[in-house]
């Protein structure tokens, strides 16, 4: 499997996903190259407190995505509360205040569908625990564009509805529990050079 082709990872989650993200963030090495972009259903008035919190939990740089900002490797981006986050083809973000999608803003579908167009087969989409079915259309869009789709194992999820809905589309490539997901992510995110020297060693 050619693992170093991926240009971005998009993650969607709702209820219970903070704990899962926290676990990822602890284990991701400083050398992790692939930008991670996260749409999480947050309280509409959350003013970046979450970003501040996660900043202290990882070796990578964590920030809130800004409109028209260039997406860079080594960063973890969160969608701002109460905005949809979209990916442009020139590797920048756009925000929108369009109506809620699946009762959510940010909506996972909106992020995933735009990312699928921008990165096609160089994209990984991950659906974590959550209590509604936002993200299912996004997963289908990623698969349609030949990206890689992963869902957290519903039996390993605090709230199985969201990953189960994604799996029920029939478009999920891999179902993993959180510990396995950690390992896969670490492998994917290493740049070619690091991986080469690792193999040689």
């Amino acid at each position, binding site marked *: 499997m050619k693992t170093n082709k991926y240009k971005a990872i998009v993650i969607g989650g709702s209820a219970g996903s903070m704990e899962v993200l926290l676990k990822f963030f602890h284990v991701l090495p400083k050398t992790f190259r692939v930008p991670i972009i996260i749409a999480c259903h947050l309280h509409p008035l959350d003013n970046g407190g979450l970003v501040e919190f996660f900043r202290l939990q990882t070796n990578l740089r964590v920030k809130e995505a*800004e*409109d*028209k*900002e260039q997406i860079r490797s080594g960063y973890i981006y969160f969608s*701002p509360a109460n*905005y*949809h986050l*979209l*990916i*442009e*083809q020139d590797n*920048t973000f*756009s*925000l*929108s*205040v*369009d*109506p*809620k999608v699946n009762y959510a803003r940010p909506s996972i579908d*909106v992020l995933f*569908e*735009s990312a699928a*167009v*921008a990165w*096609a087969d160089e994209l990984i989409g991950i659906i974590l625990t959550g209590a509604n079915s936002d993200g299912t259309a996004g997963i289908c869009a990623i698969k*349609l*564009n030949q990206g890689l789709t992963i869902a957290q194992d519903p039996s390993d999820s605090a709230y199985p509805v969201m990953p189960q809905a994604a799996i029920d589309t029939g478009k999920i490539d891999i179902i993993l529990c959180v510990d396995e997901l950690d390992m896969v992510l670490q492998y994917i995110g290493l740049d070619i050079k690091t991986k080469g020297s690792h193999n040689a060693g």
Partner: protein
Amino acid sequence: MKSGDIETIEIRLLLDTIFLRYGYDFRGYAKASIRRRILQFMKMSGTACISDMIPRLIHDESYFEKMVMEFSITVTEMFRDPSLFLTLRQKVLPLLKSHPFIKVWHAGCATGEEAYSLAILIHEEALDKRTTFFATDFNDNALKKAKAGILELECARQYSQNYQLSGGKGSFSDYYHARYGALAIKRGLKKKITFANHNLVTDQVFSETHLILCRNVMIYFDKALQERVIRLFYESLVHGGFLCLGMKESLLFSEYQDKFRVIDQKNKIFQKKA
């Protein structure tokens, strides 16, 4: 050719068609969100693919009008982001008090909720006698709604709460009549705003303006169009005039960044340097 690339061609042709046929220019809109809206309208109107909409757009004006409505749907509320309105009240309006004549421009006012909010602020700070207030949008349907000033009854509690958080000096209910299951903005307040059609993409400056509000509009534009609009605002403002953007908008990636000073970073209030 990948399906995504074909779709990109279709979108380009569609936007070119709209521009050539109707003069509305969406070509500088952020691609990802305009794509979403096009696909949504396509689904709604039961068309099989994007390019199938083109002949209909050319020959059926009502079809185009429906599409424009779909393209310009945004969500807003009275005193959206109360902290902005509180800051305007505390930091900006006092500075405007020294002017004998004040011109305010709310660009991209949509259905008018934030324009009415600002009008309430101006009234409560006793500036309304010398203020001329223009609220503009490119969408005539939205303007019609704005002029009517009818709000949904269900929102009353939320709006009232926002009003208090924004430093309201009276009661939000001072400004509307409740009737027929809706809230009607009082005539006195409505008279303070001139609603007019203006297109940020194709129209020109509003000269000698003291305060411009344009919130959550520019996020829908690509970088080049954003730059054009920021320039338009810069040229419309008097020296020392104020520009208010949305909470997640900035002048960060603009050449005009150095020509403004930051008055309030969190609420995105900027002042044109002299």
